[in-house]
């Protein structure tokens, strides 16, 4: 078996990002069984916490997890793979002698749990010999026994496999009947059933659901081939996301449809087929400076790379220097209180509370209640993303609540929360933003994305490109990418659409850490205009 083929087929491979789908494959029916009662989890948690304290921990937390995944891939008229996985176990994190220690086990007998807790303390004590900077935890008041569940309507894991396969077949046929020659469609379903407990007195049981349904379509023409990926977003929702409610579709001068909280995958596949034929004939862009109007499904990734990552505090401090690098948004810029990250209409906010988002959860993976906080207010840099042992560095005493681990077997650390661009208070439409543009390009969907190791220089592509002349979309064009620098780019933001246009895009597979861990994160934004951006032509004549 070579599952690397999956990545080649879907083009999801993101060079270096490791997707852990650990644990056992199980049957579809078993995905919806619930073998762990809350009372049982509390008992195991208390075993771990007590063992940790007895061994000398001054703080301990426990995560008991059952992580379920299902993915189904279909290529043209055949189903390649139906895969269900389960991974269950317990991870114990402690502070002893002012130092962190962690151990995890899939064996959930009381003996094994106690041993894991003791191992975590032993690791902390061993590492404490080199400790020069004892851990400083922002305080958290215990919440007692609470529970939280993603507000799904239809549990995607309960939908029969036949229905899912039928949907993917319908999607593939819709694309191929309308102009695509090849298509791969995928259903990714995730359910994290996680129980958190700590010596602060919290026992938090959470049931988190996520879903992503991408497709990758290709059309081959006489002079070459073109690609178009789906415009659905990964979401913190159940299978109801795929109901295709027409009320959740956004029209823009008839030139494109976007999707909010309901996705019509079949319609998008049909559009993809037709747009692929148009892409094959579309004029190649004239490089130069343009005013760009960026659709939310595209802009989300620019936000992710140029705002989300540089404002992770541990990145600023140098903890990720050996992987993705550091950040230009150094502490002195924040301390000055005058650093213009963007123009004064730019307000970037972090949260793990937006309904339907990938980051939405009741409490983070160190038991902190989630909330919303400003990162950039009226264009000025005002805060970072930080967790319990970091906030004191930026003179705060309340964790922001963005700590996460990809599984019970990995230690939790700071991960990007949702990071979003606030919409205009005036409820302008995307058409309202386009109508003032004299010489511009409207970009829809995500394409290539590349940014340097301090988050200055970036270059982004897209899926669909339309020329704007004197406020009107004139024609579809091709081979567009734009290159800019973060601070310059966000300071050239001149107009935002409003609440009705605001949409949540997201990434199902964000990578950080060594060994790398995966995390899912959403970015909400309206259609937004940026002036005078350098656009290049990506077409070449080779061979």
């Amino acid at each position, binding site marked *: 078996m070579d599952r690397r083929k999956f990545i080649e087929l879907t083009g999801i491979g993101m060079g270096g*990002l490791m997707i852990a789908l650990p644990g056992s494959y*199980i049957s579809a029916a078993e995905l919806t069984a619930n073998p762990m009662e809350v009372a049982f989890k509390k008992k195991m948690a208390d075993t771990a916490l007590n063992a940790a304290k007895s061994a000398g921990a001054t703080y301990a937390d426990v995560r008991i997890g059952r992580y379920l995944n299902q993915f189904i891939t279909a290529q043209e008229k055949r189903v390649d793979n139906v895969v269900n996985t389960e991974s269950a176990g317990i991870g114990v994190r402690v502070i002893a002698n002012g130092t962190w220690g962690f151990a995890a086990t899939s064996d959930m007998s009381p003996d094994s749990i106690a041993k894991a807790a003791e191992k975590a303390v032993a690791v902390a004590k061993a590492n404490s010999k080199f400790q020069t900077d004892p851990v400083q935890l922002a305080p958290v008041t215990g919440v007692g026994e609470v529970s939280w569940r993603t507000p799904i309507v239809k549990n995607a894991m309960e939908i029969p496999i036949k229905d899912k396969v039928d949907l993917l077949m319908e999607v593939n046929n819709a694309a191929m009947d309308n102009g695509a020659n090849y298509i791969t469609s995928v259903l990714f379903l995730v359910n994290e059933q996680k129980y958190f407990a700590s010596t602060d007195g919290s026992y938090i049981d959470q049931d988190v659901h996520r879903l992503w349904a991408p497709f990758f379509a290709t059309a081959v023409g006489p002079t070459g081939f073109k690609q178009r990926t789906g415009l659905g977003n990964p979401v913190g929702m159940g299978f109801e996301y795929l109901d295709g409610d027409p009320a959740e579709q956004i029209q823009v001068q008839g030139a494109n449809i976007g999707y909010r909280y309901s996705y019509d995958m079949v319609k998008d596949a049909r559009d993809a087929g037709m747009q692929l034929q148009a892409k094959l004939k579309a004029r190649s862009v004239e490089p130069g400076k343009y005013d760009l109007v960026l659709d939310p499904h595209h802009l989300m990734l620019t936000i992710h790379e140029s705002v989300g990552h540089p404002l992770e505090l541990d990145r600023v401090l140098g903890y990720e220097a050996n992987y993705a690098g550091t950040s230009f948004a150094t502490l002195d810029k924040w301390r000055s209180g005058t650093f213009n990250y963007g123009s004064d209409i730019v307000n970037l906010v972090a949260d793990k509370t937006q309904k339907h988002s990938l980051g939405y959860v009741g409490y983070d993976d160190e038991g902190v209640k989630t909330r919303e906080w400003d990162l950039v207010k009226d264009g000025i840099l005002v805060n970072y993303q930080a967790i319990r042992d970091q906030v004191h560095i930026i003179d705060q005493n309340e964790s922001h609540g963005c700590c996460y681990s990809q599984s019970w077997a990995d230690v939790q650390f700071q991960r990007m929360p949702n990071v979003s661009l606030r919409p205009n208070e005036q409820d302008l439409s995307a058409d309202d933003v386009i109508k003032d543009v004299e010489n511009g390009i409207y970009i829809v969907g995500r394409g290539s994305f590349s940014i340097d190791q301090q988050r200055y220089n970036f270059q982004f592509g897209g899926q669909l490109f339309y020329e704007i002349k004197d406020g009107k979309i004139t024609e579809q064009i091709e081979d567009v990418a734009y290159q800019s620098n973060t601070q310059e780019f966000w300071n050239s933001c001149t107009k935002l659409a409003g609440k009705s246009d605001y949409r949540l895009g997201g990434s199902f597979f964000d990578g950080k850490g060594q060994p790398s861990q995966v995390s899912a994160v959403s970015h909400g934004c309206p259609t937004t205009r940026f002036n005078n951006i350098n656009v290049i032509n990506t077409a070449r004549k080779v*061979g």
Partner: protein
Amino acid sequence: MAIFTETKARELLSKVIALSKADECECNLDGSNTGNIRYARNTVSTAGEVSDVTLAVRSCYGKRTGTATINEFDDASLEKVVRRSEELARLSPENPEHMPNLGPAEYSKVNAWFDSTASTTPDQRAAAAEASIVPSRKNKLVASGYLNDAASFSAMMNKAGMFAYHTSTNVNFTATIRTEDGTGSGWVSRDYNDTGRMDTKEASNVAISKAIGSKDAKEMEPGKYTVIMEPAATVQLLANMFGSMNQRAADEGRSFLSKKPEEGTEPAEGAPTNRLGDKMFDERVTIYSDPANPDCPTAPFTGDGHPVGTTKWIDKGVITAMPNTRYWAEKTGTRYYPTAYTGQGIFGGNQQLIMEGGTQSLEDMIRDTRRGVLVTRLWYIRQLDPQTLLYTGLTRDGTFYIENGEIKYPIKNFRFNESPIVMLNNIEALGKPVRINGSMIPPMKIRDFTFSSLSDAV
């Protein structure tokens, strides 16, 4: 201990196959002991060890396939995983491209295991980190890095009598060492099967020199330059290119190796649909894979037990083989060109590529250069155009201007927009290949490499 001997693996897998009630059954047993240590800001940040064994069982009823895995090996668990895979197979639709399991085969002997690596202790990892941190601190620099070692085995068996077994060890070290004021940064990467060859002190010295040498970088105009690419700079571009050389994609008209008919004409009956046999690169370009290469050995079989020998993908610039599947090879009447099994897990491991080069060292090549740019590595590489393999990315951690055979001064990092196809047609010189990311890649001197914009990032 997660490593099964060949005898124990065969015993367990035979037990599993004997439980099968399906038409076909194939199992993969993969296990590893891994350890790592990470450091940043001149101090250890995290360290860990993971031990894991996974059994994957794939059952087939006709053309229906189901897969289940488990990591417990008592009798009840073995029964459970086989039945689960059979149930999933019954629920799955038919796959018209299903290929039958392979029978027994002979595999070449490959030595990829070294006891030195397999017996690495946490203390040794700590010492390796110390050897990087101490000289960095002495030089008033800030070190960050990561050392990861693994000992693993792979075994597979099916009902048709196939059985294969392989063990390997690997150690990988990277370090990013920066000046305290953040104006200089250097990087190094080393990987081996035998940890006896790993010297993190020597490796870190390279990063330290680059960190010190990259302070006060000067700005150069974007444009086309002669570049000397260290192997770490080109390996990802070459791996990406190899990943796009799949025969099926070419035949279906959606790759750079598709054969397009003349504009305005229709393709003739039976005309070639791909560029096998075409010269696409400079004649100095020869790239092949060989599981038995002593510097970067791999398993001598595929994920379903087909033997893998030496395969020449590009010979003197000509495309001589394209990776394909048994199904596509049969469908198109082409030879099957298998690639080596790199383990379970959705990304698997790196595909081994061996590129021939010359005899010059990197220093020799610098000495021979009148005017050029020395690139340590390329970062955040993403594809811009699948038809021409145009990629974008940036230089990082050690970019220098060479003049009259010497490194003159450090320069600001660049973004590039370039295609490996163009790169391999613009070769000025190839040096002596070294191991990087499990492949053998020469340092390369390339003319007219396109740097498109400047980056302020250090």
